[in-house]
């Protein structure tokens, strides 16, 4: 059995620096057995460093970690596991080609004579364990055939099998839908009731508030608050996270789009899944696209952005002139800028500087006969950094050293500098902290106020309501509903997204 | 981790550079350059080394790895190092002009083995080589006598230097000269390589089951051919004519798996070339002359008397006492 202390894990005065900069400064932290402890902060506040130290992936410079009554100066991952600490990432590190049971028992498989794995016993024990956790997963299935939510459950089951008594969950709901998230919360509560200590890291403050017994707030590497989960509210939490007051509910834009239509689509179908979509977007309007995965929101964005141009039928006009881009660069030439959700994979060039990323889509305006005007480029990038509150203001710094929020801003800067008239964005604030999210929304509103048109795809209900002038719900490649966000609450929007099509199939 | 790896790498680097650099110069220094890692050059180098030891001459060895640019660099470096003469198995004689110009400017005699270019003869210390245009001819004549009619095939070396082409052609000329009515059904280039020759021979045997003789332009390829014939179960049914007289070829002849080979041992050639170069340096041999390298057709019957590639020290001693080869008129292509 574990020691009798009610504290499952205790951290005393942990400090960690990188290149002389404090990433964590004298952190004291404790989680009791059976407690769900929320950990919140902006991108770069020190959450991920702290999680790495807790799981043993990185040693602290100083301070102690006390687990199960034993003090460690630094844990390595093996010691962490042995001491009963398990970490589950949003995309769990599991073996996709092994079965569910094999993943749960990896490294501790029940054996028969001659060391042969006893598959039957393993499947049986795995079923028992999953049943005990209230999980209904096919133990024999290849893990790669399951979705992210199921994989997370397998990772948690594995932690339970390893007799972990501290479970670190890093952004567990980032890739889950509402129902899957609800299921996960119930599982977490169950585990806590059985005495497990849980550290829950998330940007979604509503979730953290709903599930946590206590919440620790980190800012700039310091612990700024430890609050009781029941007594806390979102507004207070946001204030502590950003260090100043932000409204809990994001204010909507005050100005209204102009009347003139800018983008007109008439009966547009595409190989990507659009089915005779007709749509008018006014100049200066912000349109939010949403729906279930595969519903057509992303397909619509791809057609407008010029990414999907094979077998596109129907007619489009932009600013009154016919619009039929056959390549992204043709869309850009018309002022249509597509900003992808996957900024690392598809957006930014990580090996290049901030300035070079900002200028990338409009080098022609910075060059003469193929020769670059480097001084002008630096000037433009500096001005853009200023305009977008990009941090740090060091245009020559490689973008890979920026936080997620600042990387998204740099990407937006590229589109603005390319003289964008119509911005097509996918999940414009995915994975960024509250403050950066507000800033990016403000920039988009500001662009719209100056006459730019914005079409964005999002699955973030609050974002859709706060940012859009009009929300379009797509299903089966068609625009199913057009909602005004005025007075709309997230529950209603979710219901609209989830509703089965009311149209008959013919 | 990082530090250890770095230290190890530096240590390796230091050792690699310092260790071989400790040698001191002897009285007379000759640079021996070979075209590449071919055993032919290696045996020539070994014999030259043995001869140099007996003569009290220091030999420094270089390899061009079959790259003409590297060869030129080697010549420049040898001149910088201050050698008294250069003995070179050239990758391609025709590309040596810059090297010769430099050697001439520095007053370093440069003697070529293998390949002949009349434009460089006058500026060289001498050129020694076989009669390229007729190297395969005696082999062809000997095979032709054994095969009055039927089908035969040729497998030659890497095309591009001129020799591979000439060997195959001269073999055919020899066949014709012998009065044989046999016809060539396949001509393949196998890059002097045993494995490639083996594959090529297998394909020839499949495509032309009636082939009764195969010529391989070197013995390495002849070994490949013998293996292919053995695997096809036709050992003894097909004549194999090789060229060069390499140890493994001679061994096959001894075992009866190969018919004959036209030998040009690099050992005796290199020993004589070294003596000629030293003679040029001492002023006892006239520079700019052409010499024929010794050749001989080896069959099972004359095995014992033939000069081997891998020369024993006593043979080298014997060769050193032989009279020096005399200058001769360079070979000319057979008139069509």
């Amino acid at each position: 059995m574990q020691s009798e202390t009610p504290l499952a894990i205790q951290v005393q005065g942990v400090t960690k620096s990188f290149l002389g900069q404090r990433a964590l400064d004298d952190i004291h932290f404790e989680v009791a057995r059976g407690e769900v402890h929320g950990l919140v902060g902006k991108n770069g506040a020190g959450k991920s460093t702290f999680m790495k130290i807790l799981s043993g992936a990185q040693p602290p410079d100083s301070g102690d970690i006390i687990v199960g009554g034993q003090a460690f100066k630094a844990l390595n991952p093996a010691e962490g596991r042995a001491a009963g600490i398990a970490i589950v990432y949003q995309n769990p590190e599991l073996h996709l080609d092994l079965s569910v049971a094999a993943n749960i028992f990896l490294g501790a498989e029940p054996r028969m004579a001659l060391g042969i794995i006893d598959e039957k016993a393993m499947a049986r024990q795995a079923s028992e364990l999953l049943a005990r956790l209230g999980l209904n997963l096919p133990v024999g299935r290849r893990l790669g055939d399951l979705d992210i939510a199921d994989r997370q459950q397998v990772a948690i089951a594995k932690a339970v099998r390893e007799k972990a008594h501290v479970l670190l969950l890093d952004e567990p709901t980032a890739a889950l839908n509402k129902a899957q998230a609800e299921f996960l919360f119930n599982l977490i509560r169950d585990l806590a009731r059985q005495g497990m200590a849980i550290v829950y890291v998330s940007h979604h403050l509503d979730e953290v508030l709903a599930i946590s017994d206590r919440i620790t707030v980190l800012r700039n590497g310091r612990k700024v608050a430890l609050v009781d989960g029941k007594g806390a509210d979102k507004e207070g939490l946001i204030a502590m996270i950003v260090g100043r007051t932000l409204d809990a509910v994001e204010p909507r834009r005050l100005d209204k789009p102009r009347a003139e239509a800018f983008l007109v689509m008439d009966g547009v179908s595409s190989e990507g899944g659009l089915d005779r979509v007709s749509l008018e977007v006014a100049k200066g309007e912000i349109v939010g696209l949403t729906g279930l995965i595969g519903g057509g929101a992303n397909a619509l964005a791809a057609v407008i952005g010029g990414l999907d141009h094979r077998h596109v039928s129907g007619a489009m006009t932009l600013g009154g002139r016919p619009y039929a881009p056959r390549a992204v660069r043709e869309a850009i030439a018309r002022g249509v800028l597509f900003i992808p959700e996957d900024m690392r994979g598809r957006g930014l060039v990580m090996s290049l500087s901030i300035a070079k990323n900002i200028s990338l889509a409009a080098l022609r305006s910075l060059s003469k006969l193929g020769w670059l005007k480097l001084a002008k480029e630096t000037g433009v990038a500096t001005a853009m950094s200023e305009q977008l509150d990009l941090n740090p203001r060091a245009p020559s710094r490689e973008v890979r050293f920026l936080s997620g929020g600042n990387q998204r801003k740099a990407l937006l800067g590229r589109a603005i500098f390319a003289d964008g008239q119509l911005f097509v964005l996918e999940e414009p604030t995915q994975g960024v902290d509250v403050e950066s999210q507000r800033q990016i929304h403000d920039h988009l509103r500001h662009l719209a106020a100056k006459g730019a048109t914005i079409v964005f795809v999002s699955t973030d209900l609050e974002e859709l309501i706060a940012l859009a002038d009009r929300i379009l719900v797509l299903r089966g490649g068609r625009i199913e509903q057009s909602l005004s966000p005025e007075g709309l609450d997230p529950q209603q929007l979710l219901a609209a997204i989830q509703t089965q099509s009311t149209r008959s199939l013919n | 981790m990082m530090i250890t790896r770095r230290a190890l790498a530096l240590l390796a680097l230091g050792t690699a550079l310092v260790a071989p650099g400790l040698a001191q110069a002897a009285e007379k220094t000759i640079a021996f350059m070979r075209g590449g890692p071919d055993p032919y050059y290696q045996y020539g180098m070994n014999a030259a080394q043995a001869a140099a030891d007996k003569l009290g001459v220091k030999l420094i060895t270089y390899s061009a790895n079959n790259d003409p640019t590297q060869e030129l660099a080697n010549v420049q470096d040898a001149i910088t190092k201050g050698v008294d003469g250069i003995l070179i198995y050239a990758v391609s004689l025709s590309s040596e002009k810059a090297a010769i110009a430099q050697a001439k400017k520095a007053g370093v005699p440069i003697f070529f083995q293998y390949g002949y270019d009349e434009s460089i003869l006058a500026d060289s210390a001498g050129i020694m080589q076989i009669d390229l245009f007729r190297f395969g001819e005696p082999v062809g004549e000997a095979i032709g006598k054994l095969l009055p009619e039927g089908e035969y095939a040729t497998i030659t070396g890497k095309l591009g230097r001129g020799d591979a082409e000439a060997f195959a052609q001269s073999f055919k000329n020899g066949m014709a000269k012998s009065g044989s009515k046999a016809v060539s059904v396949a001509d393949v280039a196998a890059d002097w390589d045993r494995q490639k020759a083996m594959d090529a021979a297998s394909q020839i045997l499949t495509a032309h089951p009636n082939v009764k003789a195969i010529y391989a332009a070197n013995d390495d390829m002849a070994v490949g051919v013998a293996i292919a014939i053995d695997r096809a179960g036709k050992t003894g049914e097909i004549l194999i004519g090789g060229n060069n007289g390499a140890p493994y070829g001679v061994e096959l002849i001894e075992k009866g798996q190969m018919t004959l080979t036209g030998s040009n041992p690099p050992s005796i050639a290199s020993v004589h070339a070294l003596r000629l170069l030293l003679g040029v340096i001492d002023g006892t041999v006239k520079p700019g002359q052409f010499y024929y390298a010794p050749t001989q057709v080896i069959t099972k019957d004359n095995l014992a008397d033939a000069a081997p590639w891998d020369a024993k020290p006593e043979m080298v001693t014997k060769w050193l006492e032989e009279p020096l080869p005399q200058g001769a008129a360079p070979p000319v292509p057979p008139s069509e």
Partner: protein
Amino acid sequence: MSSPAATVAQAIRKPGGLRTLDIGRYTLLIVLLLIVVVTAIGNPRFLSVNNLMNILFQVSALGIVASGQTILLIAGGLDLSVGAALSVAGLATALTIMSTGSVTLGILAGVAAGVVVGTINGMLVATNRATPFIITLGTMTFLQGVAILMSGGSPINGTGKLFDVFGLGDFLGVPWPVYAMIVSILAMFLILRFTTLGRYAFAIGGNEEAARLSGIPVRRIKIALYALSGLFVGAAGVILTGILDSGLPSMGTGYELRAIAAVVIGGTPLIGGRGTVIGTLGGVLLLGLVSNSMNLLGVGANFQSAVLGLIITAAVLLQKKT
């Protein structure tokens, strides 16, 4: 604001990203100096002006080919066919001089051959049907065959004035091929730093999809880059033909691997996205120095290849990781 912490948090994700950068930048220089010192102690003639010129002369064609290869690697590409293309360009030069007697036409033919081969490679690579490695492996083999067909198997001798200039000639004591190499490196430096083409190469190598979404005509740029590299290869072919006073089907043997080795030793990663041509010059000098050093120290022929391999491996291991 969160800037220091945010920056640091990002830096953590790339362990060693900042720390080894500065040391790594100088390791190549240190290795070069080490070789110079050791060789100079072993043989004082090493430091003679004549020998230093020899080294530059010996690496000149390699330096030109490697300059062109640098921008390909930066763009995430690779061209294994440069050695065979060098032979083809050299043969085109020698054959043209032989048949027309005009050195000018010979130079044009060699350079044009390089550009044509490069353009074809670029068009094949731009189809994205296979990796550049496989595609150029194919063209390499093809071009080796073309070289043999062009030469009829024999060397094409005699280049007249081309040999007088590149094989024998110098200006202010510096051989002409060395000037050609310096011009190539300078040109590539300017292209990489100051032109849109250079910038596009970095962008495509760093993130091809991001480049496409930024409106960069990725296919066209790739073709242009391979053609540009082909131009360098063609120029190297002309110069090497002059140096050797002949066109040989084997004259480009091994150039592809040495050029790629020089670029990688110079700090350009095979995955692209970053790199410098100055680093490539360092890699080229390392290869030339090692060979010259071993010859001057009297390292036997049978040891040289192993020592060279050891030093290349050491130089790459000592490089910074990015």
